[in-house]
């Protein structure tokens, strides 16, 4: 378990040139090691660069400076679909393809031989209980069903690492709790390394082994909180006092950051350095 899957070293991400007035420093010298098989949440106010960090790990963005190694290989702005899979919001399913076609296209893009497509797709769909909807179009499913399919699509490519970028953001709270439970069950079995971006405190505490709390722009790691609770987690965990304590701890850490973000979005105060 202690083997490092993802190693982030001194990552800085700047949008626009440093001397430009509109330049934004999204990430400032972030370093982080993520262990193999770990479920790690990036939690922070919106605009703190948590999605940026995830995209850098996934090779979708090239960082301004710093390095990121995934399984010992340098990621430098090029995706590694054989090692890393992304799950975004449910609307990432291609609406012009049926559920099964969405899986086939993902496997095709990843370079998996055609003979394996349907087998793998059906296995992943069965794992989330959506096998009987294989020939439906995404828009014929409810939002919650779509997100289950979307998660299964991320799982079917069978990578060691799964990056999830606010996958439940568009769901209502009840659905997102139930899907969170499903996710916890599902992933405990696979032993994948997961990096999960969220701004939901409860979700972060319920799902993660470690929570990385980030500061408002420029994004830095403020604290890392350990959640010592074995997977898979039952919904009862949410009723334990420790759950609320952790949740409150996260909130206390975040509150100042959220205030800082909101201040930066208002009219500039005389002394503040708002973007």
């Amino acid at each position: 378990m202690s083997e490092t899957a993802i190693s982030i070293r001194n990552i800085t991400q700047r949008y626009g040139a440093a001397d430009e007035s509109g330049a934004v420093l999204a990430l400032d010298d972030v370093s982080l090691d993520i262990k193999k098989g770990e479920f790690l949440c990036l939690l922070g106010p919106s605009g703190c660069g948590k999605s940026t960090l995830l995209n850098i790990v996934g090779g979708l963005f090239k960082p301004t400076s710093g390095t990121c190694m995934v399984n010992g290989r340098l990621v430098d702005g090029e995706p590694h679909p054989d090692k890393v899979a992304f799950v975004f919001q449910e609307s990432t399913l291609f609406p012009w393809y049926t559920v099964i076609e969405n899986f086939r296209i993902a496997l095709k893009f990843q370079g998996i031989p055609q003979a394996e497509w349907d087998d793998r797709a059906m296995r992943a769909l069965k794992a989330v209980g959506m096998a009987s909807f294989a020939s439906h179009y995404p828009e014929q499913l409810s939002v919650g069903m779509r997100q289950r399919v979307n998660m299964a699509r991320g799982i079917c490519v069978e990578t060691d690492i799964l990056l999830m970028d606010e996958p439940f953001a568009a769901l209502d709270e009840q659905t997102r709790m139930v899907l969170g439970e499903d996710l916890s069950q599902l992933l405990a079995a696979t032993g994948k390394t997961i990096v999960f971006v969220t701004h939901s405190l409860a979700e972060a505490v319920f799902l993660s082994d470690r929570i990385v709390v980030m500061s408002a722009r420029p994004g830095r790691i403020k604290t890392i909180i350990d959640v010592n609770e074995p997977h898979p987690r039952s919904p009862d965990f949410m009723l334990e006092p420790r759950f609320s304590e952790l949740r409150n701890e996260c909130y206390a850490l975040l509150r100042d950051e959220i205030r800082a973000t909101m201040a930066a979005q208002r009219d500039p105060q005389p002394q503040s350095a708002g973007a």
Partner: protein
Amino acid sequence: MSDLASPQNSPALAASPGVFARALRKPLWLRVALLAGVVALLEFYGRLYADPAFMSPPSLIVKAFFDKIAPQPKILEALWFCVAQIAAAYALSVVFGILIGLLIGASGFSRSAFLPIILLLYAIPQVSLLPLVILMFGLGPAAKIAFGFSHGIFPIIMNVVAGMRDVKELHLRAARSMGASRMDTIRHVILPHAVPSLFTGLRLGMTLTLLGVILAELYVSTGGIGYFTRVFAESYDPAPLFALTGCLAIIAVIFNELVRIAQNHLTPGKRRPPTLKNSVKE
């Protein structure tokens, strides 16, 4: 017509939905009733009040079709010619419109470079150029096809470009994260995304192609439909004139319907599996 429409709102009928009442609730009936009412009014007005040199009741128009249009091989030939010209102009618009649209929409750079030119050309009221087009292409079908083509191609180009442009960033990012190449992305993400917009363009293009061809037909009055309309108009014989116009309208409706049917069959995501339309909610 209001007699037919009003029972829809009557609570007595709404409370006991018999077969008749349910049929009445379909909007189709209101539409048919409105059209029937307008035809009846025209008939009434045409027979009792109108000057027969300028207006004809619908019944006489239908009669004129069978007496003066259908038996005339020259007029039928002109109509067929018109159909062929529309088909040719539209085929050219579709092929070149899609090709040019794909080229312009392929990158943000080419879009910024070329789209303003297209918008500028599209903004020109082309009717003002019709005499010039006829001067260039002569009085035959070439001018009509060219004029139909110059009308039909622009909405197709613009909608192909628009469809390729508003592809979702999230879809592009997802495809890239799965390892899709540039060609994969174009084929499986950008093009399927552009299909609904393409069909909007194809339908608009059809409407404008019809407009272009028929405008040119009417303008060139030495032959074809334009000639016959002038003959009927100048001899104060409105019934066959309206009948001929009606034929053009029917041709236009058929062409538009063909495109609409093609759209319904070819838009991905519209080919639904037949079951479980409403029963799939959790």
